[in-house]
């Protein structure tokens, strides 16, 4: 039924552009189409405007050696359809910017401009996104002739911030080295008194060249690298890579359940840290200490069952390590029951404090329309009415066999984001319990061969939202590895959320977003 739907959409596209739809066909995740370059932007625009598609990711590849040009790839999803559409097209020096119509295309296009040197014509804000001042003379790191360890010649240029000017309006620069123990990023506020009139986020400080390093890396090494793209979402990143690399290879049933359990344990400790952070940032020390202690309990549990406090190393290509002996199962069940109960007490304590509620209610609102236009994902999106959850919409591993609810709120403030996380912890705990009950015995590992040539996608719901890994393979080797962390979608939203709030509320709003800098910068 839904397959027909996607085919219908592609047929309609063919009616519109005829022969210029060069190729279309089934794909392991839905359908794959290639359109003539002059129709690329138009086709994506039509699919989004007419069929309600949304852009899950967009990236470029340097195919000049094999096909003589660059190519752009748009990964689109459609409401109520589980299949994805990968729309590709060749391009040379420039392509038409979609940002004027589709707001969430903004950072993707700026990233392509930085990394490939392709120009998005008509882009309203073509400033560099990842590459800072003092970099690169005409060299764009993801072009093929540049090696991973090439030193690139510097060029002096100056990044201009968007600054508001007017009587009594002043600028507050913050970062990249912050007061707390967090990752580096620069925030430039324009404020009148305490009210924030404008915020510009400048990131890229932790750009390590992840995508380039992953090109051609042996799969075993690549797996360990993906765990370290954004450490607190390490299991999710490694699962997304495995899903792409395994491409259709069946993982043993026990490993499917074990992977779900690992992913949910990761979600629990992340959400606990985020909830505790809200208590800490509102100077509510007792629940902060209590919930941080619960997170420590979870990290200890992780270490007992996998040997690593953040669960890294437990996922292997084709399965998992030998995990969850009977004693471990008891340990997980007992610990999770305790954590769930104690979290409820602490959250009750937070909610019954008027001074806490005063800080979080109506603070840092992301309107539903803003969330939709920017395609905000994960708990941030679900706090603003965006009913997206990869586990339900594009089930992977054993999720289709497990029962869970996806919490949804519409208020879009700090309080709603906290509520989403609190309820998700409960859901995750019951998910783990159910998975432990139903997990079959037997082996948990297998050896997948290298994927066949083509494009493969891994789509996973990380603790911070929808995470995508896309690999292009040739001769069993990964020639391009695109990573799209959920934070890449969510960062632009924080610039909208703070407007009208006061500068001292920014740390609280930032905490409620809990965005990864490392995952965004790559």
């Amino acid at each position, binding site marked *: 039924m839904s397959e027909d739907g996607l085919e219908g959409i592609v047929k309609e596209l063919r009616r519109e552009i005829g022969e210029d739809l060069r190729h279309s066909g089934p794909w392991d995740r839905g359908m794959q189409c290639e359109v003539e370059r002059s129709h690329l932007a138009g086709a994506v625009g039509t699919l989004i405007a007419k069929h309600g598609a949304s852009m899950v990711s967009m990236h470029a590849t340097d195919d000049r050696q094999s096909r003589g040009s660059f190519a752009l790839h748009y990964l689109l999803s459609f409401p109520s359809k589980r299949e994805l559409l990968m729309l590709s097209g060749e391009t040379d020096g420039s392509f038409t910017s979609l940002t004027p119509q589709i707001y969430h295309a903004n950072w993707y296009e700026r990233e392509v401009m930085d990394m490939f040197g392709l120009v998005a014509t008509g882009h309203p804000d073509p400033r560099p996104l990842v590459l800072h001042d003092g970099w690169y003379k005409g060299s764009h790191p993801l072009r093929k002739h540049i090696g991973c360890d090439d030193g690139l010649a510097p060029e002096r240029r100056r990044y201009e911030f968007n600054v508001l000017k007017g009587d009594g309006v002043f600028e507050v620069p913050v970062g990249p080295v912050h007061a707390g123990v967090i990752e580096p990023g620069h925030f430039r506020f324009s404020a009148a008194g305490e009210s924030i009139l404008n915020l510009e986020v400048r990131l890229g400080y932790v750009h390590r060249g992840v995508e380039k390093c992953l090109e051609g890396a042996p799969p075993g090494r690549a797996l360990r690298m993906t765990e370290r793209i954004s450490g607190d979402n390490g299991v999710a990143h490694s699962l997304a890579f495995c899903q792409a690399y395994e491409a259709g290879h069946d993982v043993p049933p026990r490993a499917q359940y074990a992977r779900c359990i690992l992913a949910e344990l990761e979600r629990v400790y992340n959400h606990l840290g985020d909830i505790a952070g809200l208590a800490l940032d509102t100077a509510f020390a007792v629940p902060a200490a209590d919930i941080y202690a619960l997170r420590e309990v979870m990290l200890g549990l992780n270490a007992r069952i996998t*040997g690593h406090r953040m669960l890294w190393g437990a996922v292997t290509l084709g399965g998992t390590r030998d995990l969850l002996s009977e004693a471990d199962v008891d340990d997980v069940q007992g610990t999770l029951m305790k954590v769930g109960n104690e979290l409820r007490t602490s959250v009750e304590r937070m909610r019954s404090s008027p001074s806490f509620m005063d800080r979080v209610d109506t603070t840092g609102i992301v309107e539903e329309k803003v969330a939709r236009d920017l395609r905000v994902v994960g708990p941030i999106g679900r706090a603003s009415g965006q009913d997206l959850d990869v586990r339900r919409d594009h089930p992977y591993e054993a999720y289709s066999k497990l029962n869970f609810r996806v919490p949804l709120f519409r208020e879009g403030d700090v309080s709603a984001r906290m509520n989403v996380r609190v309820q998700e912890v409960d859901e995750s705990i019951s998910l783990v319990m159910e998975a432990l009950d139903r997990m079959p015995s037997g082996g948990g590992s297998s050896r997948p061969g290298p994927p066949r040539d083509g494009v493969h996608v891994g789509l996973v719901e990380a603790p911070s939202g929808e995470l995508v890994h896309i690999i292009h393979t040739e001769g069993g080797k990964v020639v391009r590895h695109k990573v799209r962390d959920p934070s890449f979608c969510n960062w632009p939203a924080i610039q909208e959320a703070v407007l009208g709030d006061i500068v001292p509320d920014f740390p609280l709003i930032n905490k409620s977003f809990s965005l990864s800098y490392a995952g965004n910068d790559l």
Partner: protein
Amino acid sequence: MMQSMLFKKRRTLSLRELLDQRVGCPLADPLICDMCGKCSEACPTQAISVSDRWSVDLGKCLWCGDCLETCEKGALSMAGGCEAAGRRQDLILSAETERSALRLKDETRKVLGRSLAIREVDAGSCNGCEVEVNSLSNPMYDLERFGIRMVASPRHADMLLVTGPVTRNMLPALMKTYAATPEPKLIAALGTCAISGCPFGNSYASGKGVSDVLPVDIFIPGCPPHPRTIIMALLEALGRLQVT
């Protein structure tokens, strides 16, 4: 509710409990190991060498356990001890290695030994190290009871705790932070990236660790380092504890 808050059991780990906690690292049993080199091939960061004897470089190790999985003879286990070092070469371990104690200059210990103010600088970490540095402040580890605290500005700091391989985009900020820290100051490289740059280091965008750009006094191994390793490293370096 008050009652539950007032009569909660102590959760903070005592120094004895911390000392008894064991943080392991891969180590080959020389009686079983036949130096076949399979673990070395399986290691994603080439941390294991079998050239003349089996050794592992804790500055490169990711604690992924891939070496343990490949060893058919069962010679490998997490039997090694993961402890900090004052010199880079002291992080290379084999079964025969005698651990050399971590000790700062007497003068530095005298000035900073009783209380230490730390500024954490992320120079390109994946945020795994930040997770564990934040764990230092939770009620279990409670770093502040030792007179060691995290401060908000390098101008208040005695030590810079640097994570990440030092990315090109963070290098200017790291150097400015170093310049803003008053003398005497210490530099600690925290985690595999900060020590050797692995796994993403030495690319067009990032360096090979902190010691390439700043004089490092303490190397704290781990990916990410266990809070226990961090606390022990700091106490030992300040001469507050003999760790053997």
